[in-house]
């Protein structure tokens, strides 16, 4: 109930604070209880419930927009990380796919701007989806006072939160801008692999920067929706989601381009490898999901377990359905070695993985913002379509800008002859 309390906000205060409602069990109920309202108790209680519902529903469009925006942004970010790993590992199989990866990661720029605009809107008070931003939350005696959040304001305050977001976005985009430039330059001047070596160093540095900033980003942009709750593996958990979504989109775009007669140097073995990654990282995601779930379920500490109680009670079908889609589906469909080479199998599995990870983000965000008043309606579908449209426009536009074969890459010959 603490989460609900802080959610009410100051504009809601008048109705909420005149009565000691059983569920509102913390201090401000006592402090603000006043006389003369006893006879109106029942109707006030009802109007309070309606008010509560109203606040949840007014959070809904913003949350829907936020979930979809983050989902497509995270695909681009996950793809960028995958690309950097290929560079650093000096992988021989993947250079044929570099232009596809560069195309998908190009959404990082526009997606990053959109993401920042949404964060800025929340930070400036255009919506109330982040409950820790409520005014007075750190002031002792204020109706919104929340001791737990007050203890975190050194880190969790709007200016620092926005500065972090800005710094991360600039850092990620800087890498992506550079590596694209190096990749194109390497095609023009392949002698001595100067640009290739530069790209290697930048990728190695990016990965160090990425894993720290990605973790903090996941606390800031997702975990802070439940500001009382914390999980130490949350950064990894969000990373697994973005990684598998990014790889899945690489596979889908590759299969699409190939079906259109492009990418003639990509063969079944490349698709097989991508499908292996989809399979493997889906299992890795499940491992993290279960590690987080089981430890909290077993220890049953009230501050921690509320997170799963709200999800199991209010989001039961989505919460468990999402695990089934993200785990059982890839496990059973992609386990067989031969199926990983059949394009329509990979596409089917990929669509379900993307759907599952959208729902994963949905179930991470929505319980804290709209609570039990959730349903997947026009705002959710519309936001998803909007960002899907921008995403596809941006990535295919970038893919069309350069030759699909990174011909200057020193490993391109190995990639062309890759055979499993």
């Amino acid at each position: 109930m603490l989460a609900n309390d802080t959610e009410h906000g100051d504009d809601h205060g008048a109705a909420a604070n005149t009565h000691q409602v059983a569920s509102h069990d913390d201090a401000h109920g006592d402090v603000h209880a006043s006389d003369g309202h006893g006879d109106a108790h029942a109707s006030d209680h009802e109007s309070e419930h309606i008010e509560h519902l109203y606040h949840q529903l007014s959070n809904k469009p913003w949350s829907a927009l936020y979930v979809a925006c983050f989902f497509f942004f995270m695909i681009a970010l996950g793809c960028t990380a995958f690309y950097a790993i290929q560079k650093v590992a000096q992988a021989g199989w993947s250079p044929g796919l570099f232009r596809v990866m560069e195309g998908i990661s190009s959404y990082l720029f526009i997606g990053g701007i959109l993401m920042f605009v949404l964060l800025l809107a929340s930070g400036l008070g255009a919506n109330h989806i982040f409950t820790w931003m409520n005014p007075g939350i750190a002031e002792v005696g204020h109706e919104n006072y929340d001791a737990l959040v007050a203890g975190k304001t050194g880190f969790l305050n709007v200016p620092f939160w926005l500065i972090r977001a800005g710094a991360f976005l600039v850092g990620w985009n800087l890498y992506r801008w550079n590596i694209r430039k190096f990749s194109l330059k390497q095609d023009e001047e392949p002698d001595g692999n100067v640009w290739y070596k530069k790209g290697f160093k930048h990728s190695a540095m990016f990965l160090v920067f990425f894993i720290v900033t990605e973790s903090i980003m996941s606390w800031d942009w997702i975990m802070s929706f439940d500001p009382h709750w914390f999980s130490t593996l949350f950064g990894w958990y969000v990373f697994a989601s973005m990684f598998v979504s990014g790889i899945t989109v690489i596979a889908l775009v590759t299969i699409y381009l190939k079906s259109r007669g492009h990418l003639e140097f990509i063969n079944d073995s490349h698709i097989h490898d991508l499908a292996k990654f989809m399979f493997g990282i889906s299992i890795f995601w499940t491992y993290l999901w279960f590690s987080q779930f089981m430890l909290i379920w077993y220890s049953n500490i009230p501050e921690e377990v509320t997170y799963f109680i709200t999800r199991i009670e209010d989001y039961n079908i989505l919460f468990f359905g999402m695990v089934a889609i993200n785990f059982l589906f890839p496990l059973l469909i992609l386990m067989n070695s031969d199926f990983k080479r059949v394009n329509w199998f990979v596409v089917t599995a990929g669509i379900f993985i993307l759907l599952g990870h959208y729902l994963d983000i949905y179930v991470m965000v929505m319980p804290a913002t709209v609570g039990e008043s959730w349903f997947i309606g026009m705002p959710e579908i519309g936001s998803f379509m909007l960002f899907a449209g921008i995403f596809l426009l941006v990535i295919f536009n970038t893919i069309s800008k350069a030759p699909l074969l990174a011909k200057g890459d020193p490993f391109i010959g190995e990639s062309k002859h890759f055979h499993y």
Partner: protein
Amino acid sequence: MSDKTIHALYTDDDVLLGAVKQVREKHYHIEEVFTPFPVHGLEKAMGIADTRLAINAFLYGIIGLTVATVMMNYIMIQDWPQNIGGKPSFSYLENMPAFVPIMFELTVFFAAHLMVITFYLRSRLWPFKSAENPDVRTTDDHFLMEIDATGKDIEEMTKFLHDTGAVEIKIIDKDAH
């Protein structure tokens, strides 16, 4: 006319792979190839059917999962329910998350061990079994191809095998073998 087997020895895996393809093109029957290490792509070149070991592994995994479920249900729910941290001890399903690590481990355990045992049996390997390879050098640096020469012109075959890169050719009587 003869009732013989030819042993052709090679010293390089790539040459061997090329030779296997040529021999099959000539429609000679390769009985077996002995190599000191696994040669990538050899089973495809020899036209051997795909292994069914993966299907076995899946079934073994399911057996392991079942054993773990039945075992934990008997130990922790039916035989001796214990109150551990207030967790539901009279329902397997409600206490299932606590058993997932065991279910996972036994799935892996059964799949891995039974798969190895199956592989040994299928490869006709068991303790105290005497070696089947006809030449000890196949455990060191030589590759040996065993070709059926029944009813074939030995001289022509020998010449052909030399051209594929064989360094040594032996003609073995089948009865003696």
